[in-house]
Structure formats: structure tokens, C-alpha cells
């Protein structure tokens, strides 16, 4: 009997083992303090980079190359600082220093030493995470409440004037907690690291990706009522991003090699296969798609089929303005943010982005929310 049981063909055993090992090691690394690593490799890398730059600068061909790089990386005549936003609303930005709120007039306020953040509905509050903690904050930085959860990350807030929920991930699970911070619910898991999203125009329907790469939907009937599974997709490899259209009728799912759009009229989801896709975002108030793609070192922004902007290096973080008229993309190699109007007729760029947010790494835009 033992031999017979061991002979049964178990599908996907190898792939399942490797996926599980990735999850287990991730959980293990969060359990165990990471040992201090030597600074020598970083010092050596910096020294090599510096010597290369020096060598390039002292030789005339080298100087020509540097001049060329200076010309092609970054928008010329970019503003030296973020003096204002081109559209109504406020930005949430995460940098090495913490999470910032940027107002329409360009003023910046550091909320605190948080890693990630999200706006509440109507932009009245911010939910943020730091190590093992979910925090609700007022936009002036005052803390409303905190919730200790292991590995808390990727908060997303939804709801109405009367009732809200914050979804977030822990080390391996998906949770949801009412806006007052009480009654936290373990929704399910194990979950992939992709941030969960709430479906607009539906009462507390949460969407997340499980460790098999399947998109899952869960509804709450009312209040803290029973969670019940409402939908389940097939498995996709390399999940990277989930996003609902503002009317809740389309779901964008970006993976390492595909862009999948659920909810089109045909029964099967629309799927575009491309390994060059960097990011994608649905325009507020429509189903129009903006896409960042890169090829042979050149990145490009497309809205629909139109190419609106391109440049050398990799673009990141595609974000629509709340009115759907402007797009913001990051250009780390140029240390710039580029605001591109959706009709392609205007471009505004801002330089020195990292320094403005007191950051060694390139700041990340977490959201562009409604005007106060």
C-alpha cells in the first residue's frame, strides 16, 4: 500500500516546492535578525564607480561620453524643485526618511518614519506601516491609532463616509480592519506580496493574489459579517500589481510577462504578453490604459496606442492624477519626476527629487488623492 501511495502522480510537485520554499525563507528571514554585512563590497563598488568617472572625465573621449549621457538622461529645463502639482490633489510619497504628504502648492510635510502609506477615502487620513505596525494618521502627522502585526505592509483603505476598511498584508496573511482600528479580521492566505486592492463601487470586496498566483475576491456582506469567497482566477506566474478601474468593472493584473485585464466583454480576460512592461495604470473615470514599457535601455509611456514620452533608462511608478488629466512617472536615472498631460501636449519635469525627500534611494509615489 505504501508503494502504491508513493506512486500516485502528484501534479506540480516541483513548482509547488519551490514556491513554498520562497515563502518559507521569506518568513524565516523576518523571524531571524539579519546579520550585519560588511560594508566593503559597497565601498569597493563606490570606489570603482568613482574611479571610472574620474578616468572618463580626464580623457577627452570620456568627457564626450559624459556630456552625451547628461544630454539624453532627463528632461532639459526641468524645474529644480517641486513648486506645485499640475492637477488638484495631494501626493503621498515614501522615501528613506519616511512618508510625506505633498500639497498642490508643492509644500511637503514629513508624516513620520513609515515605509508605505495609503490615503483613506476622501483623503482625510493616511494608513501607514512600519516594521510590525499598522498606523492610522491624520494628514498633519497626528497618530490616531496603531495596530501591532508581524510584517504589516501594503495598506489599502476603502469605504464610505460612514464605514471604512483597511486591508493590509502581514508576513503571510491578508487582513482587514475597520477604520477605527478595532475588529481586525484575518481574511485569508497565504498571500503573495502584491498589494491587495478593494473593488470600487462594491461594498468591501477585497482582491488579492495568493501564493499560487491566483487572483482571489472576497466579499463582506455587512459590517464584520462572514467573509465568503466570491471569485478565483487561474494561476499566473510572477504577479506584480493589481488595480481596479474606478467603476469597479475592470481589473488590471500585471505579471512579470503579461498584462491581464479581467472584465472585458468576452468571457476570457484580455491578456497581452510582453516582457517589456514595467507598469500599467487605468485612467480614473474610464477604462483607458497607460503603460510603461522598456526596450534596449529606452523607456516609453503609452496611453492607449499613443506614445507620449520616452527616455533613456527605466521609468517607474506610473500614477494618474485624480482628475485623470495628468500622469506622473519616476525617472530614477535622471532623479526626476515627469508629469505628462494625457493628451501629450504638455510635460513638466522636476529635478533633484531624492534630495527634496531626504532620500538616498529614489522616492516612491504611493498615491495621488482627491483635493481636500
Amino acid at each position, binding site marked *: *500500500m505504501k508503494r*502504491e*501511495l*508513493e506512486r500516485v502522480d*502528484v501534479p506540480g510537485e516541483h513548482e509547488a516546492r519551490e514556491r513554498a*520554499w520562497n515563502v*518559507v525563507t521569506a518568513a524565516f528571514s523576518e523571524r531571524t535578525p539579519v546579520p550585519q554585512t560588511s560594508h566593503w563590497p559597497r565601498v569597493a563598488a563606490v570606489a570603482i564607480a568613482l574611479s571610472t568617472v574620474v578616468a572618463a572625465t580626464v580623457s577627452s573621449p570620456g568627457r564626450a561620453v559624459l556630456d552625451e549621457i547628461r544630454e539624453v538622461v532627463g528632461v532639459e529645463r526641468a524645474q529644480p524643485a517641486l513648486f506645485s502639482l499640475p492637477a488638484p490633489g495631494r501626493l503621498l510619497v515614501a522615501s528613506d526618511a519616511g512618508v510625506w504628504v505633498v500639497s498642490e502648492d508643492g509644500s511637503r510635510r514629513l508624516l513620520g518614519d513609515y515605509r508605505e502609506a495609503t490615503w483613506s477615502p476622501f483623503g482625510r487620513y493616511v494608513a501607514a506601516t512600519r516594521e510590525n505596525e499598522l498606523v492610522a494618521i491624520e494628514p498633519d502627522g497626528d497618530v490616531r491609532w496603531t495596530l501591532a502585526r508581524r510584517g504589516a505592509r501594503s495598506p489599502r483603505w476603502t469605504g464610505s463616509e460612514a464605514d471604512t476598511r483597511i486591508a493590509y498584508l502581514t508576513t503571510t496573511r491578508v487582513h482587514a480592519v475597520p477604520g477605527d482600528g478595532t475588529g481586525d479580521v484575518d481574511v485569508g492566505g497565504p498571500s503573495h506580496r502584491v498589494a491587495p486592492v478593494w473593488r470600487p463601487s462594491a461594498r468591501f470586496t477585497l482582491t488579492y493574489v495568493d501564493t499560487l498566483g491566483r487572483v482571489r475576491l472576497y466579499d463582506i456582506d455587512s459590517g464584520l459579517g462572514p467573509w465568503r469567497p466570491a471569485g478565483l482566477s*487561474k494561476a499566473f506566474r510572477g504577479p506584480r500589481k493589481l488595480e481596479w478601474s474606478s467603476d469597479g468593472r475592470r481589473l488590471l493584473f500585471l505579471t512579470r510577462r503579461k498584462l491581464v485585464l479581467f472584465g472585458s466583454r468576452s468571457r476570457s*480576460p484580455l491578456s497581452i504578453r510582453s516582457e517589456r512592461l514595467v507598469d500599467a495604470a487605468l485612467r480614473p473615470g474610464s477604462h483607458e490604459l497607460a503603460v510603461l514599457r522598456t526596450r534596449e535601455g529606452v523607456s516609453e509611456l503609452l496611453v492607449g496606442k499613443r506614445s507620449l514620452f520616452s527616455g533613456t533608462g527605466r521609468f517607474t511608478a506610473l500614477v494618474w492624477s485624480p482628475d485623470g488629466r495628468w500622469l506622473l512617472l519616476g525617472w530614477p536615472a535622471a532623479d526626476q519626476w515627469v508629469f505628462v498631460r494625457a493628451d501629450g501636449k504638455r510635460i513638466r519635469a522636476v529635478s533633484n527629487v531624492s534630495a527634496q525627500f531626504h532620500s538616498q534611494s529614489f522616492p516612491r509615489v504611493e498615491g495621488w488623492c482627491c483635493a481636500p
Partner: protein
Amino acid sequence: MRTARDERARVRGAQEGSVSDLETLFRTHWPRAYRAAYLVTHDAAAAEDIAQESFLAALRALDRFDRRRPFGPWLHRIVVNRAIDWTRARRLRAEVELADTFHAPPAPSSPADDVLAGLARLPPEHRAVVVMRYLLEFTPGEIAVALDLPRGTVNSRLRRGLDALGDGL
């Protein structure tokens, strides 16, 4: 991992933060954990979830684990109990298709051979007993403890399980 002594050393290493020891434990025990979950649930995706969550549960409890006990049976007991819970829960809640926006959930795998077909005819609680006895090599007494069942119930489930499998084979 050849001996119980080796395994104790690996557990101690993992408790102290060694990834390589954790990996040895994982790669040694994953195949049986996954297979056992699959044989009880007959659903590969569920088996993966269950085996994975069981490892994570074991990881969370690792600091409290008594190294004098063998790691495998401890882990497999978690796996089988979770697999039984999952099959019971599936009877109560069917995952349904979301209108036109999603594919239907993948159907449970069809039995690949006569043993699998025979197991499929058994209630999940009976499958679990057969899997624990013949795949994971628990004694009937250990199964009774692990599943919190009277010893006689374990024996009767084993007998009925073998009868059903015998018919299938």
C-alpha cells in the same frame, strides 16, 4: 538527513537561524507533506496551500519545539489535520465563478490511478487515516492521538479504507 541525531542538529540549527538547516528540513519533509495533503484533499492547489501553511506554522512554533521529538511526524500531523479541515470546509463553502470576469476555479484533479480513485470514494477522515498509516507510517496509536480519535475508530477506518481500496484495485 539520515539519522534522528542529524535531524535534531538541523532543528537546532534552524532554531538558531541557519537557513541551510532550515532548507534541509524543508527539502526532506516537503515531498511527504505535499503528497499527504494531496491524497487527502485531491486538489493540488489546496495541497500546496496546506503544506506551505503547515511549514509556516511549524516555523512559528520552532522556538518552542522540543528537539527530542522527531520533526517529521510533528509536521505531518499539522498537515493532515489541516487537510481534513480543508475538505470539511469545502463541503460547506463552494468557491463560485464571478460573473463574466473570472475563469472558473480549476476543477479538482481527477484521480490519476486506481489508488487515487479508491481514496476518492472514502470520506476525508478515512482518507486521512489511510494516508497517515501507509504513507506517513504512523502507528494506529499515534494516529489516534494525532487525530484525537478512539483507537477502535482508527482501526475500523483503516479496515474500511483498505476494503474500499481493495475493491478499487
